[in-house]
């Protein structure tokens, strides 16, 4: 518990099984405030399940998950965890296709969440400025009135990152942000994420090794639902157990 107090996210002995299949086996991990962490691992290593546990989609069979010291995430639902300051970007870009780019950001904007509050809500000047600011960051300012459905794949990924920023989270969970992106977009995305990591903690799940190298942060290797190795990319790349299960293949 001592460790939990000073950390932003604290997972200890988390296990999840689906119909006998152990997706997570006693997974433990600590994310410090302001830290950016890359998570790698082969398919089925439990990366997505781990994100599901943190965001409240899946309840762990055992183990502790604490946010910002003493908030027990295992007792909360998705909406309250999101309001707490944990944002999630999915592997497949999921934006609201029949809303405009502007409305997508507006919906994600930190603030009113209750039904009757949104019913009578009027967008304030401050909110408009904030949306403009985010649109500039993700370079979609000129497409603010486009339906999200008409954006390209890369643009949707960026819009989703913009929605995450609008939520003003303390911790961002980002699942394969560069999947399907061009090389130029991948480099730009790494720059954007590093920019974000200056003020927020970020967990990035990624397969793309050159992207992880661009990020240049501490790496955690997952295998069969638990942590196999942790350290710099060079250190884990040199770890014989890692080479055996993942990098060597």
């Amino acid at each position: 518990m001592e460790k939990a107090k000073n950390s932003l996210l604290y997972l200890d002995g988390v296990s999840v099984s689906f119909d006998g299949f152990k997706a997570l086996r006693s997974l433990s991990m600590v994310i410090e405030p302001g830290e950016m962490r890359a998570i790698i691992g082969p398919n089925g290593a439990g990366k997505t399940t781990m994100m599901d546990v943190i965001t409240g989609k899946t309840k762990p069979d055992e183990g502790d998950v604490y946010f910002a010291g003493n908030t027990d995430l295992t007792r909360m639902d998705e909406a309250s965890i999101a309001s707490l300051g944990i944002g999630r970007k999915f592997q497949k870009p999921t934006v609201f296709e029949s809303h405009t780019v502007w409305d997508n950001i507006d919906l994600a904007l930190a603030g009113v969440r209750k039904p009757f509050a949104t019913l009578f809500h009027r967008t304030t000047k401050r909110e408009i400025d904030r949306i403009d600011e985010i649109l500039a960051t993700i370079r979609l300012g000129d497409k603010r009135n486009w339906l999200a459905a008409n954006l390209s794949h890369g643009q949707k990924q960026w819009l989703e990152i913009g929605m995450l920023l609008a939520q003003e989270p303390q911790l961002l969970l980002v699942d394969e942000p560069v999947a399907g992106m061009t090389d130029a977009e991948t480099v730009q995305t790494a720059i954007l994420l590093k920019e974000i990591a200056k003020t927020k903690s970020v967990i990035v799940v990624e397969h793309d090794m050159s992207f992880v190298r661009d990020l240049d942060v501490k790496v955690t290797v997952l295998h069969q639902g638990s942590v196999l190795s942790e350290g710099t990319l060079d250190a884990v790349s040199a770890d014989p157990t890692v080479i055996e299960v993942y990098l060597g293949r």
Partner: protein
Amino acid sequence: MITAFIFRALDKKTWAVLIILLAVGIILPVLSIVTDPSSAFHVPTYLIALLGKYLCYALLALAVDLVWGYCGILSLGHAAFFALGGYAMGMYLMRQIGARGVYANPILPDFMVFLNWTELPWFWYGFNHFWFAMIMVLAVPGLLAFVFGWFAFRSRVTGVYLSIITQAMTYALLLAFFRNDMGFGGNNGLTDFKDILGFNIQAPETRGVLFFCSALALALGFLICRAVIASKFGKVLIAVRDAESRTRFIGYRVEGYKLVVFVLSAMMAGVAGALYVPQIGIINPGEFAPANSIEAVIWVAVGGRGTLIGPIVGALLVNFGKTWFTSGMLAEYWLFVLGALFIAVTLFLPKGVVGAILARTQKKPDESKAPPAVSPIQASQAAEEGA
């Protein structure tokens, strides 16, 4: 707060719809009452009653569209809310009969005397007051929707499973209302109405006013739906429809939104039922039939779900078709026609009649101004190179 909420909804299209509905609501009854039956402008009373019925159906369709077209909740049980609103009105109309019934009992409606009941059941108390009945028109469907939605949405029942349990709900009510012991007239329902607020329910003037009230209720329903959709709440509804779990991860408690919109929709359906009953002159358990709910869904699909004009147009079109078709010799084939219509609309007009017209009239931004195949980064790089 409320006025800002309403004013935000009042764009040109909304004004146009409201004015058309109110104009029709005033002009037709006036033509029916003032003009001579031989005049070319005369509107016969039977037509007023028929069109009034269509307007009630249109309000029901609007209610279905609000939950289905905007929030993705395919309710196959909305006729239950419609019928409950109708029963609340029917109970008031029964109490209005008073001693003029066949058995001349000043308190008990005829069917209760027939069943040898000696006193009015507790749930009939208060229905001699019009205001009480009107509250019940909103409260009973609203309460049922609240209880049903509370359990269904909290348990995250969605999609086809939700549709099936809404269907089960209306079927259960159908069976319950068929029982004489329920105290709602059993199989025969409530009928033989005489007065409403002291006016003869058969009189052309009363029918004209009822027609106007139906048009007014539809206009108000449209305005409320428009205001809801134009608000941030409406944006959340569409977000839930398109990507429910994403909406949760942004921090919206989806079940709360579904519950609010479901209750609102049920109340609208209740009002539609309450206006339907005095114009039709009867309410019986047949109104709970699962087929009625499905028919309402077809109106919405034909007109165009996810637009607010669509369900109104759909309800009017399909019901004109039904009246025309079932009055001819092809009457027994109507259900086949309805089924074929639904399949055809699903296949060829997935956005309904109104959706297809909108897609044609609006210049296609999707095609002509198609997003360039370059990413924002490439575009900005190109811009930088150019500068």
